[in-house]
């Protein structure tokens, strides 16, 4: 984060161990700084700080000036000679994008909330972009349309950019994931007739649906049943079914349950077809799910458009992460043009006060949350599961692939530029069903499981 240039007493010239431009003693305070709540205010502060630094590049002079006249007067004096408001606007828009008319593909699920809401709520247009969000029928189709460059950017499952880059299930194409969309927000839904079979040990012979082979849903469901002693390839059947078709299949008794994205868990409850067995946050609180992805080619050929797009997404994600905005978002994304769902279903998912399908109303405000930061540790965990279940045959350098696909540095820089506080990229603890994961030892982690394919 920026040190506060408005504070004449701030300590100078001492760099913190985290590499940030602040004193070590200030690290905790600064990284935990309360960012001004209102969006506009945040931009204003970042721009004003930059201008102030430009006018008084020498720290000592700036402090002297500020000490004499005070911060407010200083800015007023500067704005009389410098068009501050124009600068703020220009900053909010960034450099002129190379390409303004962009197509972004999405699958109609709540995971894509930031990508979708950025359209009706104007986050794209604020960055000077004319984005068309295009609903797509399934993950294989969104992958092929992205590879065919029909989409400039797209909503994918967080394991997909890794799989595409590694060439698993498609030709290898360098793909990048600059932002995660949502964390948590998935659930295991079972058909109502199984309401007395809450112990996974009773699930032998069950048929489950997951959205895609390369999905957190697949890995989490496999992990969950394996921890309960069932082999996911032998004792149960797991099928890839596009999310929108899950409820219809559950209703038709074609499957016994699914680990799927919302709104379809809540939709199954709404239609009296299924009940929510558990939320995936009970397995791993804070797990990633869906992602905002672009090809490496697009990012390097259109750096400004890429930055503007990423800004819009980070901005929308930050907005979506605030509980108080969730009802408004539910309303914005419910129409047929976006998710095409009853508003009450979306509201229950986003606010976390929901009917569980068994007659109770439950409350969990973190049922779904939004956090754009693409932790490399997530990527490494995902690849260990690809390895565990035999999707990934070759030995790879986990950390290298992770840092090439999950662009944590880009996101951190962008967040700083926007006046947000990026987290420390090395500090992420992953605990899945009580078992800690050490990203430095991926091979040992894979070996530690009793049920595995490799």
């Amino acid at each position, binding site marked *: 984060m920026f040190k506060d240039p408005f504070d004449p007493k701030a300590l100078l010239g001492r760099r913190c161990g985290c590499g940030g431009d602040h004193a070590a003693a200030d690290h905790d305070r600064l990284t935990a700084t309360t960012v001004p709540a209102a969006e506009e205010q945040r931009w204003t502060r970042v721009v004003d700080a930059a201008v102030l630094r430009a006018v008084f590049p020498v720290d000592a002079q700036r402090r002297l000036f500020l000490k004499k006249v005070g911060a407010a007067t200083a800015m007023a004096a500067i704005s009389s000679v410098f068009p501050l408001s124009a600068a703020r606007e220009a900053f909010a828009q960034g450099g002129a994008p190379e390409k303004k008319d962009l197509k972004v593909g999405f699958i*109609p699920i709540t995971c894509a909330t930031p990508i979708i809401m950025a359209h009706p709520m104007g986050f794209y247009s604020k960055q000077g972009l004319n984005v*068309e*969000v*295009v*609903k*797509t*029928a*399934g993950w*294989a*189709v969104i992958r*092929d*349309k992205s*590879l*065919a*460059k*029909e989409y400039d950017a797209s909503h994918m499952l967080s394991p997909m950019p890794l799989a595409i880059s590694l060439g698993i299930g498609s030709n290898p194409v360098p793909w990048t994931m600059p932002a995660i969309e949502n964390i948590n927000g998935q659930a295991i839904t079972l058909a109502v007739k199984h309401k007395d079979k809450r112990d996974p040990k009773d699930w032998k012979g069950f048929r489950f649906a997951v959205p895609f082979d390369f999905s957190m849903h697949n890995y989490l469901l496999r992990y969950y049943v394996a921890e309960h002693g069932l082999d996911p390839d032998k004792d149960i059947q797991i099928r890839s079914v596009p999310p*929108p*078709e899950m*409820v*219809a299949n559950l*209703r038709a008794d074609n499957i016994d349950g699914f680990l799927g994205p919302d709104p379809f868990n809540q*939709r199954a*409850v*709404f*239609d*009296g*077809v299924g009940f929510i067995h558990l939320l995936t946050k009970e397995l791993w609180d804070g797990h990633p799910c869906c992602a905002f992805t672009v090809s490496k080619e697009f990012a390097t050929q259109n750096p400004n458009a890429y930055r503007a797009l990423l800004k819009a997404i980070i901005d929308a994600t930050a907005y979506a992460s605030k509980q108080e905005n969730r009802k408004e978002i539910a309303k914005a994304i419910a*129409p*047929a*043009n*976006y*998710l*095409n*769902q*009853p508003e*009450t279903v979306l509201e*229950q998912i986003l606010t976390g006060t*929901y*009917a569980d*399908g068994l*007659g*109770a*109303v439950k409350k969990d405000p973190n049922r779904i949350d939004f956090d754009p930061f693409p932790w490399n540790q997530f990527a490494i965990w995902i690849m260990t599961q690809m390895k565990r279940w035999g999707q990934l045959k070759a030995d790879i350098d986990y950390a290298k692939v992770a840092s090439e696909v999950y662009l944590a540095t880009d996101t951190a820089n962008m967040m700083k530029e926007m006046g947000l506080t990026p987290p420390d990229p090395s500090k992420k603890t992953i605990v899945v069903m009580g078992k800690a994961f050490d990203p430095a030892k991926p091979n040992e982690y894979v070996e530690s499981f009793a049920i595995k394919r490799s």
Partner: protein
Amino acid sequence: MTALKNSLGLRAALLSLLIFAAIVGLWQIAAQPPAASGPAVDPEYAKRVGAAAATGSKSAMPTPADIGVTIWKHLTDPFYVRGTNDKGIGIQLAYSLGRVLLGFGLAALAAVPLGFLIGMSPLVYRALDPFIQILKPVSPLAWMPLALYTIKDSAISSIFVIFICSVWPMLINTAFGVASVRREWLNVARTLEVGPFRTAFKVILPAAAPTIMTGMRISIGIAWLVIVAAEMLVGGTGIGYFVWNEWNNLSIANIVTAILLIGVVGLLLDQGLAWLTKLVTYPE
């Protein structure tokens, strides 16, 4: 005689109406929401789920009356545009028709000349036969992943799928029609020293035209069947996408509306080609 015919037509129409009324009536009765049977639930819970789920049952089929309302809503406002992913049913039908006609037209351009060649040359017929026999029974949708992968454009891919499904009946019928032109007519042409091109256009084409048109009629029927499935797979626009989008929302009333409209358009396409076939038919 005409009186009898009229009365037969009249009686058939009456019977049709009766069948229709019986189906709708039975449906209306069957789809009545069951009386609240389950235990009374917490009102906080009830307001978060659908009406059926609140009484412990699954949401029911819509009644014919619900569907009538939905159809009326679509027919009175068929051309609205509320964003990329939400367009009126008229626009969706137009997209699908456009794709079908384009794919079908391209297939006709390829199949008729090739069919001519196959029909006229036993050598080419035998050489191409194994390919045709293997490719013909492949479901056109099986081509979709391959098309998306190689063509790299979803719009062209769906047109390709229409092309590939409508090419076979036309090809086979053209070849058959050309091969079975009566020998006498060809011999007469040869005696009169008519050139090969003139023979093709003045003798063979008119003689084979009814068979070719029958092939086209089969093709357009298949193409219209396939477009719905192809659009459900690829999404974006078209009546198939409309069905898929409403399936997302489990909106059976909208899906039934689409089914009826797909049927009506299919009927019109078929009747159009039947009329064209009549134009080229000749008495033996």
